[in-house]
């Protein structure tokens, strides 16, 4: 299981990477493996305001459907249309080109509620 340093993680298997005033969100390697081949992605719209732990996307695999939740509150400022056209990208590059949305966080203090790489790796190793 790959859990890069420098990212923050949720207990629902999302990751978030701060990038100045913005933050990129995706699902973890653990999540993509658990889902198996991803066949469908639906993303929140640009401009939507989401609160922490609210859905920002739906992913479906052959096996299951599940929601992706916002790691922190914010405004959706970009979405990755590439994973809509090619959902397998999420399996291949969960921390790279398989990102989901870019948020402009409205309450940066929420980052402190998230796990770092070591904590998340330990959480998922349980």
């Amino acid at each position, binding site marked *: 299981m790959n859990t890069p340093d420098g990212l923050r993680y949720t207990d629902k298997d999302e990751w978030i990477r701060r990038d100045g005033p913005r933050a990129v969100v995706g699902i973890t390697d653990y999540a993509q493996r658990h889902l198996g081949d991803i066949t469908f992605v639906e993303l929140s719209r640009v401009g939507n305001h989401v609160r922490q732990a609210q859905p920002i996307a739906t992913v*479906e695999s*052959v096996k299951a459907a599940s929601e992706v939740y916002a790691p922190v509150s914010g405004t959706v400022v970009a979405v990755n249309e590439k994973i809509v056209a090619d959902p397998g990208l999420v399996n291949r590059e969960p921390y790279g080109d398989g990102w989901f949305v870019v948020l402009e966080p409205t309450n940066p203090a929420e980052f402190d509620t998230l796990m770092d790489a070591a904590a998340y790796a330990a959480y998922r190793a349980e």
Partner: protein
Amino acid sequence: MSPFGDWLMPIQYPDGIIAEHHWTRRSAGLFDTCHMAMFAITGDAETTGLEYALTCSVNSLPVGGCRYGFMLNEVAGIVDDAVVMRLGRDDWMLVVNAATAERDEQHLRAVMRRPDAVRSMAAETGKLDLQGPLSREVLRPLVPPGILDTLGYYRAVRTRMLDMDVVVSRTGYTGELGYELFVPRDRVTGVWRALLEDRRVRPAGLGARDTLRLEMGYPLYGQDIAADTTPLEAGLERFVDMRKGFLGNNALIEQWAGGIRRRLVGFRTDSRRSPRHGYHVHAGGRAVGSVTSGSFAPSLGCGIALGYVEKAYADPGIGVVITDGRIELPAIVTEPPFYRDGTARTGG
């Protein structure tokens, strides 16, 4: 690995469901189907009562022939689906589902005139399915010369493979050219390894087995058909020989005369989103049925499903909406198979 009955079953191997699916359509997938059960029946089909126990015509099979049919209860509910194989004049093999095997055995013993003619082969027999357009060439060097050239679709033969007695049938659950291999249980691992030595073969799990069968519209017992559905409702009357006597035929004739209220149909969506088991089917602003099996179809790139709808909505071309109460998937009632390029009948 997932538990299925008392079995631990691989849902997928490291390649993943979609890769395994495509590999089976393109080359050859190897499926561990040792959970399935078989019965040996010895004797005349009429005298033993095998003919009466199955909806398909049994005694008319030539030696080496296979036929798909059903075991029904008195009210024509499906007890199980099965493939019957005639391996010799009085030598039959019945291949049934894993979860129903015990019940099937009780049913057969209760229904047949000669219950002692039925013997469970489950403890001694393992089964592997080799499926895919290249499966004939993969199998050829392992069996006696010429055997596969005369083994047409839905034919079976007792033969030798890797120095053991086996049954090879040209059957399967994928729509591709392929074989089911019935081998001594204690030798299954060796056969599995020998087949995988061929680089054209890759292991495929239950996940791919399900997407492959669903693309063909093959029903899954316990999901699409069950004791509370009849072959008429399931649209599978072509596997019922109404000219012969079998348990359940009076109820079926009655249902035929009275008309059915619902029918199992296929649905095709224009989305990559999967309809799933339990989703409702809406038409004309109300619920008219429900989905029994649904998935993303890797070979078609869209969601497909099987499900029951009121008879008025069962005709191909009718537009419906499949919904879980939250999402709505427009779908068209479609006559299976959804996937029409299968190689199952290639080369006779």
